[in-house]
């Protein structure tokens, strides 16, 4: 397990815990790749048959100084060697990852290295292997499939002139964009009118003080959500949406499994299903002929025509198939595809390409003024910005407020005792927060969960982003800490 903290998962499941300094993932991964190559543990057969650029990677990796890696990352070399060997020698090696490794300015680099690891060891294209993002939302995969990403139209077709024309023909419209749209933070910082659906950037976006400035400066803000979130409080118009038990539709899980959810209760008050709301806004804009659905099933039928991977899936099939259907499912008779890349990859030549990636440190390092590294994340009792879990009594009572997790030695030097208030400052903002002293985190690093409105970790975080995808570096920024005032 690669994690700066000893989490519940580490305690229960980890055979080896690589407790690294936040932001040094690429160094650890490059070291693991080097170890596998040095010890001859790579899968020669797989590399020969299904990859290219192995020699390039070998040359790059030969320059890595493992002692230096140990210094940079704080991970003992013997643990790096042991994990590399264990992964390479496993009958089935599987990588599960998520925001811990992607929410960095080198997030996409980190993923390239994970890809290198599975190509090197042949642990991909077979059941129980691969590089697998866990995702934050139940249908995060589904949203991506539908094209809710700035660089894709539905079905992962790249945004360009050709794709625009394809969908213009399909939908009978004109002037679809041929250029990629804006990413999340760009929308918040540069747009003047924003229509938000199920997102709470006041808590989830980095550098909350600036987010507030941006949102308060909008000409018009519409928020569609199931509860009055911190962001909805700033909206000009709030459109109440129905929750998952109050609607019929599908979710697509991280394993590309499409499954059906059914309506169990009526939505309260004026809350409506998301599609109904969007459809009626479109009708108000004069597009009744294009937005003319009677049910979510109508929309799903359209999805089948737009997204070839979904073409063989239907509500009827989903109702009969327990556990859903994995896309790609190109036709009605097709059983679905639980494992992808069994024969070739989605590259022009069908091969896996090794990519050499240098380690780059995070945007902000600790220094005299801000001597601690803050990393943010989650606690098991809350989900994301807490809009649902902070309204659930049992969960709220477990964790009603944020805390800052500090190593006992650091706490002693700061003269802060457990449960005392601390004042935490970064270049972006200031937070007054309760301490939780714990040996589960490394010295010099502190942790704050981001689920809370009043003690909002993102007031402190750095909006610096990965140039490839603009993912903000939530996981690393520099802070200073001092004892709070006695009150």
């Amino acid at each position, binding site marked *: 397990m690669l994690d700066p903290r000893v989490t*519940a998962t580490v305690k229960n499941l980890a055979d080896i815990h690589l407790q690294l300094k936040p932001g040094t993932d690429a160094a650890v991964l490059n070291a693991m790749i080097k170890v596998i190559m040095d010890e001859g543990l790579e899968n020669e057969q797989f590399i020969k048959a299904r990859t290219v650029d192995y020699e390039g990677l070998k040359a790059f990796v030969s320059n890595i100084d493992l002692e230096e890696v140990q210094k940079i990352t704080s991970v003992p070399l013997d643990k790096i060697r042991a994990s590399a060997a264990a992964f390479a020698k496993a009958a089935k090696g599987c990588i599960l990852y998520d925001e811990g490794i992607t929410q960095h300015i080198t997030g996409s680099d980190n993923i390239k290295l994970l890809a290198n690891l599975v190509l090197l060891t042949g642990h991909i294209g077979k059941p129980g292997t691969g590089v697998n993002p866990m995702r934050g939302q139940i249908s995060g995969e589904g949203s991506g499939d539908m094209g809710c990403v700035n660089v894709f139209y539905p079905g992962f077709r790249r945004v360009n002139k050709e794709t625009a024309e394809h969908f213009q023909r399909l939908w009978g419209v004109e002037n679809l964009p041929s250029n990629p749209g804006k990413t999340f933070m760009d929308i918040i910082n540069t747009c003047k009118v924003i229509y938000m659906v199920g997102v709470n950037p006041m808590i989830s976006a980095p550098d909350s003080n600036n987010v507030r400035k941006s949102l308060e400066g909008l000409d018009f803000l519409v928020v569609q959500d199931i509860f009055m979130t911190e962001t909805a409080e700033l909206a000009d118009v709030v459109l109440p949406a129905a929750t998952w038990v109050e609607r019929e539709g599908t979710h697509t899980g991280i394993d590309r499994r499409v499954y059906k959810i059914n309506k169990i209760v009526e939505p309260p008050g004026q809350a409506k299903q998301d599609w109904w709301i969007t459809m009626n806004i479109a009708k108000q804009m004069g597009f009744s002929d294009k937005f003319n659905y009677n049910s979510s099933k109508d929309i799903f039928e359209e999805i089948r025509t737009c997204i070839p991977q979904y073409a063989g899936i239907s509500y009827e099939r989903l109702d009969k198939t*327990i556990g859903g259907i994995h896309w790609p499912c190109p036709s009605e008779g097709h059983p679905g595809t639980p494992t992808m890349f069994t024969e070739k990859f989605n590259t022009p030549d069908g091969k896996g390409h090794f990519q050499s990636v240098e380690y780059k440190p995070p945007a902000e390092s600790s220094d005299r003024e801000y001597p601690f590294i803050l990393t943010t994340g989650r606690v098991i009792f809350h989900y994301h910005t807490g809009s649902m879990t902070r309204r659930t009594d049992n969960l709220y009572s*477990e964790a009603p407020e944020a805390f800052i997790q500090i190593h006992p030695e650091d706490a002693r030097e700061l003269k802060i005792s457990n449960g005392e208030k601390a004042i935490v400052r970064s270049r972006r903002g200031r937070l007054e927060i309760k301490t939780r002293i714990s040996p589960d985190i490394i010295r010099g690093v502190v942790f704050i969960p981001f689920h809370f409105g009043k003690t909002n970790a993102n007031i402190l975080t750095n909006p610096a982003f990965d140039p490839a995808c603009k993912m903000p570096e939530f996981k690393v920024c520099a802070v200073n800490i001092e004892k709070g005032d006695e009150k």
Partner: protein
Amino acid sequence: MKTGELYIGISSEKQIAEKAEAGGVVTSLLKFALKSKVVDTVVAVKKGKNRYEGILSFITEPEEVEECTGSFHFATPGIAKNVKKYLDTYNKKIAVVCKSCDARALIELAKIGQVNIENILMIGINCSGTLAPVPHISMLRESGTDPYKLIYEDIDGDKLILKFDGAMEKIFSLNELEEKGLGRRRNCQRCEYPIPQMADLACGKWGLNGERGTFIELCSTKGKKLFENAVSEEVVEIKAASKEQIKRRKQEEAKKVDFAKTRQKADFTTPEDKFYWLSQMQACIKCYGCRDVCPLCHCKRCVLERDLPETVEKGVIPPPPTFGMIRLFHVACYCVNCGQCEDVCSADIPVSALGHYLNKNATELFDYESGVSMDVRLPLSAVPEAERANKSTELKAIKR
């Protein structure tokens, strides 16, 4: 008729007798109980979309009872808990189709006033054990069989018999499956009550050796009365069970009890590592699943929702190991080894084994067997004379 007598019966309603898995006696008795207003509601399991989906149903229309015919070995709804939660047995009369664990749980609940046993007619069903659906669906799929074509399953001794649409049949050895972690739920493997004699009637087919019909034992006055009336109203046709059939039934029971005892020995042995249970509890994520499904949990305000440092501390994962164990201590005397807690545990902790183990210890210490009779009083609330006469401070088992 007298309590304790055994009969072989078959439904007098021809369509039921033919359609039913074993002659439809239970179906007909339940219909009769509703029609003659002996009960207002029948609690039974309906088949869902397939053999893996059992839907616990509260039925008031006699005809609807026919949708519950058959034993669904892959469906294990928490019957006692739902009866306690959703039915007012102080004001309504119900009939419940139950396995021994369900009947025993209802009896324990009745002892603490959570249900009214006077208004519960328990039609007990012999049980060889139930199976978790998901691992077996996977097993069948991996062996190239469509699991959803299953139309019938049965357990006969060591054999798990699966019949599929298209006249295909597969037979597995339970022993072999259970060595691999498949087969019956672990608590079922430890169960020493295959025949539910604590219910009002105990129905099954052991001893019949393939003969069509149902063996019925009249376990209580209430059960005998219903049965007598059903027979005189010609709802079921009966004949007396032969000595040979009764003997075979007893032998089948004995075999299962012996097997259960060896499983108990295996599951209850304290491992070398005396901190085994403490480390098992490390996986707990406070989902409250075990507490929510346990039929015997009944406190209005549950101690597990409090914030007590080092015992049920809030905001900490894993919680102190006492979090998972407190419930087991609280229900130790009552635990009926229903296995629901282990079924729902998000962290795959074998809590049912620990609960059952504690119950066995309590049984020995207090000479108390849970769920076998209303007349066996709760050890912590009923003090027998012998115990009152004990002037010493030594804790030793006193015969009740």
